[in-house]
Structure formats: structure tokens, C-alpha cells
């Protein structure tokens, strides 16, 4: 025990707070750090904290001292707690953010967590994920509802405690990256934090509805909003999204249901009708002749206004099997189905619809039947939209994609294909990819965009004309590309060559086609006249605008598009358009 009045040996300078008591050395320990602090024995906790705040460079009110299992209150004295020389006091420095740490969720750091894909955050590589599993606390339901499910073309991350102006932008980046990287999506899904969030259906619904794209989608297709409002379905969907294994299970169930459907008497017809839209264009492409206009059925089909699986109004269709194998065209199926042709190209990322450039030159798609089909489509966008965006269409597609055997089996049973094993083979090969494409949201959005479809038709016609007028012109067009073609081409019918004599120029045509396809593939949802989405091109400008405080991303984008990327001009536009 130190003697009273005996000064600390070797410690001559007076501690400001030391009155006459002895100076004791107390170790102050944080989880990361340890410091020895000399303080008067009879000092108060407040004085002790002053010293500590100096040493640890923290504010006094952030300090919490613990000794021997008790928290030291400011009004106490050290001796009250029995703090003596050589003993250790624990220090906790409170950060400003307690609990639901916003800091760690700064979206840009991709959380290293774990897995892929569930709706949560995924961490592969560089993608910013806002809910990097590092956040321990479950997010309160009211926090930034920015999670997008795989519901249509939306995917994103929920931001916890973000609230910054940049978050929207970040989210959109996330969305884009997520769409292009399914692995990441799955990683996101598996993060337990996100799973937690997803298990709250109200929260999910809020988040989904808050997304403007979703709202648009819902406007176009009220069925989706019905789906959202059906809690059971939501829960199930979320469950599915969360659990890839369960999703597969569901798919398998659906497949089984489909095959069951096939076996019941009326069901087979239903199934057949369901698949006609896939087969038809194939067939018509193969046949190249359409006696009577088989597309008249299109008009009849339009009032079904819904999935092909609904068997409502397919009865009045003219006998499509008059001329053998003349297909019964259905709209959307027609266009998308025509991707696979006798050429049998394997679709790649850049070639989303698997269009085989070589085979496109064979004029299959240029038949009058296809033309009228195209016209029907552009005139009747609603039908396409309904077809494509309805949820169970999607499900069907998914199940088909998952189970190509089933699909092909059903198809093969169809008398349409019965006489043509070759076509069956092709179709079987193409089917899974084709179905994947159907799910490609970009392709879908293009197909539902009537103007894009019309434009594509125009392209097709123009190219056709060119081909006939100046066959030698095609190769020279290659290098220049075909500028100004609206992107987002889901149109399989953009065949440049009408004539079957593609022998000489086939290579050129193929290359041209490839280019065009790449342009289409590279473009975002339709309408922009550049080969990249304006968002991508103007990314850095958008960033700058955001940093300057222009947080309205849509307006920024518009301004940038209008000014062609000139930031200053864009700012002036933005300022000019804002009421002051």
C-alpha cells in the first residue's frame, strides 16, 4: 500500500488533477488498446475520464468505464470502487452509431459474406452490397425499402442506414450488376441478413412497390399487383427466392403438374395450345409457305389477353393444320420462337436470341407470314405484354427451362411436330436456351415495346431492300455497322438477306448479323439510339452530378442525354428546369 504523502517516485510533475493524494497507475484497457494512466488516488471518475479522453482521443461522453463488473458513474470516485494502483479498468468507447450500424453497410463495399444469391446481398467481387453481412442488427422494416426481388427485371440490395443521396445511384448500379451476374444474385440471396428481411412479407411488398420500375410493371399488368397483394403468394415467392433448392423443388412440381395436365383429356389440348406459340414460328420458319394466312388466328388469340395456358378462346382458330404443318401462329411465341432455325446456333450472351446469322440469310424469316406476324405484334402490343409479363407465363417458362425433357416430350407429342423429326431435334436443342431468353428481362422489355418492334420491322424491310438492290453493298455496311438502329432488339426477324442466294455474301451477312445482334444485346431496354445504355455511357457524369447535389437521377440522365454528356450544359438544363 502506498504511503500517504509519498510522492510517486520519479514522477515530479504535478498532475493537474492531483491534489494531495498519491498518484496511482491504472491500466485502461479497450478491446484493442491498452494504456497506463496515472491519476490521483482520490480522483473522481470524471477527472479520470478527462485524462482518458485526452489519451485515447475520444470525447468524454463517449467513454464508458467498467471496473470489476461495475460501470463507473461520473459522480463516483475511484476509491469508491476500490481502484488501486496496478489494477485494470475496462474502457468502452461508444461510437456515434449504435446498433444498426450504418457504417458497415456503406453500400460500396461488397460484403464478403458468403453466398450467392439470395435476395440478400451477395458478395462476389466488386459489387457493392449494402447489407454486407457485417451488419448484425436486423434492419427495422421502415428502412430504405430498396430491395428488389427477382420479380421482373429488378434486383437490388436493401440499404441499411444509408440514406445518402448516392444511394439511389448505387442501387441502380447494383441492379445492373445483379442482372448481369446471376451468381451474385444467388450469393445475395443466401446472406442470412437478407433472408431475414425477406421473411417479412410486408417489408418486401413495400420495397417492391416502392420501386418505380415495379410500379410501371404493375400498371401494365394488374396481375402482378394482385400477386403482390396476395400474402400467401408473396411469402411463397420469397421463400422460393430465398431458397434455390426450394425453387427447384417448385419447378419440379410444376413440371409434374404439367405432365399431369397432359394426361387428362382436355388438358392435352391446353398444353398443346400452350406450346404452339413456341412451335409455331419454328414450324412456319421451316415450312416457308403459308397458304391461307395462318396468322389470322392472331386476331382471335388476342382476346384471350392472357397466358396461353388459359384455354379460353382458342377454339375459333382456323384449322391451322389445313396445309400440313402450317403452324398456328401465336404472337409472341412466334417472334421469339423463331430464334432457332435450321441453323441451330447456340445463343450466347451477346446473341441473346440465338439467332444464327447464317441461317437468317435463308429468307425463312422473311416470308410474308412472318411479316404479317410482325405487324400483328406491333399492332397488338398489349397481347404481347400480357403474354410475357404474366407471372405464370414466367413460371411456365422457368419450369420449361428447368426441365427441357418435359417440354420436348410434350412438344414431340404434338402432331405438329410428329412429321418432322428433324425439327424436333432442333427445337429440343434450342428449347432450354430459348426459354432462358424468354426470361431475359431485356428481351422481354423489348418485345413488349411496340415501337421497338416496329422499328425492327422497318430495319428488316430496309435491309431486305438493300439486299435485293445491292447485294454487294452488304459487306461494306459491316464496318459502319448499322447506326441508329434502336437497341434492345429481340426481334429475330431482322434478317438482312432476303434472297436464298446467300452463298456469296453469306459470310458478310453473318458478320453483319452478328454485329447487329451484338448491338441489340448490348443495348439496354429499348429506345436509346446508342450501343450502350445512356446510363452506362454517362456514368461518370452522373456521378459528378450526384456529387454536386443533383439527386434526381432521372432528370440528370435526361439532361445528359440531351446534352450528349456535357456536364455543364446538363447542369444548366437542370437548373433551368427547376423552379427557383
Amino acid at each position: 500500500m502506498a504511503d500517504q504523502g509519498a510522492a510517486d517516485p520519479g514522477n515530479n510533475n504535478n498532475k493537474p488533477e492531483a491534489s494531495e493524494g498519491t498518484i496511482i497507475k491504472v491500466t485502461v484497457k479497450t478491446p484493442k488498446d491498452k494504456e497506463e494512466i496515472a491519476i490521483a488516488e482520490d480522483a473522481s471518475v470524471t477527472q479520470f475520464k478527462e485524462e482518458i479522453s485526452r489519451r485515447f482521443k475520444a470525447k468524454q461522453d463517449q467513454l464508458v468505464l467498467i471496473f470489476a463488473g461495475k460501470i463507473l458513474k461520473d459522480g463516483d470516485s475511484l476509491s469508491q470502487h476500490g481502484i488501486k494502483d496496478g489494477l485494470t479498468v475496462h474502457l468502452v468507447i461508444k461510437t456515434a452509431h449504435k446498433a444498426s450500424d450504418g457504417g458497415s453497410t456503406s453500400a460500396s463495399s461488397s460484403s464478403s459474406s458468403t453466398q450467392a444469391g439470395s435476395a440478400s446481398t451477395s458478395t462476389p467481387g466488386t459489387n457493392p452490397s449494402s447489407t454486407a453481412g457485417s451488419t448484425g442488427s436486423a434492419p427495422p422494416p421502415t428502412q430504405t425499402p430498396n430491395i428488389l426481388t427477382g420479380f421482373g427485371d429488378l434486383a437490388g440490395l436493401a440499404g441499411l442506414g444509408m440514406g445518402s443521396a448516392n444511394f439511389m445511384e448505387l442501387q441502380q448500379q447494383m441492379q445492373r450488376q445483379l442482372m448481369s451476374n446471376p451468381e451474385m444474385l444467388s450469393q445475395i440471396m443466401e446472406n442470412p441478413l437478407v433472408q431475414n428481411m425477406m421473411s417479412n412479407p410486408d417489408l418486401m411488398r413495400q420495397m417492391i412497390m416502392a420501386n418505380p420500375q415495379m410500379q410501371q410493371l404493375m400498371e401494365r399488368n394488374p396481375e402482378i399487383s394482385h400477386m403482390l397483394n396476395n400474402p400467401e403468394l408473396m411469402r411463397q415467392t420469397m421463400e422460393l427466392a430465398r431458397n434455390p433448392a426450394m425453387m427447384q423443388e417448385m419447378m419440379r412440381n410444376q413440371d409434374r403438374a404439367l405432365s399431369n395436365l397432359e394426361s387428362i383429356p382436355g388438358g392435352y389440348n391446353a398444353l398443346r395450345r400452350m406450346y404452339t406459340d413456341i412451335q409455331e414460328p419454328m414450324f412456319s420458319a421451316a415450312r416457308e409457305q403459308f397458304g391461307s394466312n395462318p396468322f389470322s388466328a392472331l386476331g382471335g388469340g388476342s382476346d384471350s389477353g392472357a397466358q396461353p395456358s388459359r384455354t379460353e378462346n382458342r377454339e375459333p382458330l382456323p384449322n391451322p393444320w389445313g396445309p400440313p404443318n402450317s403452324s398456328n401462329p401465336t404472337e409472341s411465341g412466334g417472334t421469339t420462337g423463331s430464334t432457332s432455325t435450321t441453323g441451330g446456333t447456340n445463343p450466347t450472351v451477346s446473341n441473346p436470341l440465338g439467332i444464327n446469322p447464317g441461317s437468317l440469310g435463308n429468307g425463312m424469316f422473311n416470308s410474308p407470314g412472318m411479316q404479317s406476324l410482325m405487324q400483328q405484334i406491333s399492332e397488338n402490343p398489349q397481347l404481347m405484354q400480357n403474354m410475357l409479363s404474366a407471372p405464370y407465363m414466367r413460371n411456365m417458362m422457368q419450369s420449361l427451362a428447368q426441365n427441357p425433357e418435359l417440354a420436348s416430350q410434350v412438344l414431340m407429342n404434338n402432331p405438329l411436330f410428329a412429321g418432322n423429326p428433324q425439327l424436333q431435334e432442333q427445337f429440343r436443342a434450342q428449347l432450354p436456351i430459348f426459354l432462358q431468353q424468354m426470361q431475359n428481362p431485356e428481351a422481354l422489355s423489348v418485345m413488349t415495346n411496340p415501337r421497338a418492334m416496329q422499328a425492327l420491322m422497318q430495319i428488316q424491310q430496309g435491309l431486305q431492300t438493300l439486299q435485293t438492290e445491292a447485294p454487294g453493298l452488304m459487306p461494306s455496311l459491316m464496318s459502319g455497322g448499322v447506326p441508329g438502329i434502336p437497341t434492345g432488339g429481340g426481334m429475330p426477324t431482322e434478317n438482312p438477306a432476303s434472297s436464298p442466294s446467300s452463298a456469296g455474301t453469306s459470310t458478310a451477312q453473318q458478320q453483319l448479323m452478328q454485329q447487329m445482334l451484338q448491338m441489340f444485346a448490348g443495348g439496354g431496354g429499348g429506345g436509346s439510339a446508342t450501343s450502350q445504355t445512356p446510363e452506362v455511357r454517362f456514368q461518370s457524369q452522373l456521378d459528378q452530378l450526384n456529387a454536386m447535389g443533383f439527386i434526381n437521377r432521372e432528370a440528370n440522365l435526361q439532361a445528359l442525354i440531351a446534352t450528349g454528356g456535357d456536364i455543364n450544359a446538363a447542369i444548366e438544363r437542370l437548373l433551368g428546369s427547376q423552379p427557383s
Partner: protein
Amino acid sequence: MRIECVKVPRNFRLLEELEEGQKGVGDGTVSWGLEDDEDMTLTRWRGVILGPPRTSYENRMYNLKVECGPGYPESPPFVRFVTKINLNGVHNSNGVVDMRAVSALAKWQNSYSIRMVLLELRRLMTCKENMKLPQPPEGQIYTN
């Protein structure tokens, strides 16, 4: 003489633990000490657990009361939370820790200590089933 035959007297053990608590043995995530310095029976103890990061207990400090009965260390101490907490094994109404839920307490050995108990409780907070549990607002305590 075999070691296990030697039974350290209770008070010796507790004094040792007291000293350890005061010296801050360990990583600083838990702290313990006598509730009352004059308590000659060394029965009533206080503990503090710092909530582990990346859990819903993060950034919080939990006060506990530990009571080492006369049978200590052969028999386990009674532990109860003072600060309200939502943790499996802790009664919601009064913060009493259920022995059987905490594996350390369930299979108590005389070599275990108060420190171990606190560390074990802290470890429990990091378990999957606990780490995301929603917590009551900070600063609330059990009143009984």
C-alpha cells in the same frame, strides 16, 4: 497427492477471482467484481458483458448479478441479467439465466469460474439462434 483431491477452499477461489477481475485478466469483453467490497462472504458479484460485434447485442453493455452460494465452486453460481436482454436461456421476465440452457452451467465443474460463465454467455450471443434476436431498447433493466 493427486491434484484433483485438493479442493481449494471457496474463499480462496473467490479471492483469486476477485483479483483477476480487478486486474482485467482477459480480453476486456467481460468484467466482474464484488458487488459490495465489504462483503466478506464474497457472495454477491457483479458482471458486465460487452455485446459482441455483428450481433444484435453489439455496442451494448449488459449488467449481471452473480451469486456464488456456499457450495461454490462445486455448485454453479446463480446468474441473472440486470439489463434487459433477449437471449435464449434467459427468462424474459426477470433476467434469470437458466442453468440448463448454458452449457457451461449445465455441466458445471469446480474448475469453472465466474469469468468463464460471463464469457460463455457472451459466446451464446454470437450463436446463430441468438445473434439476430431483436433486443429491447437500451437501458432497460429488470425490476425484480
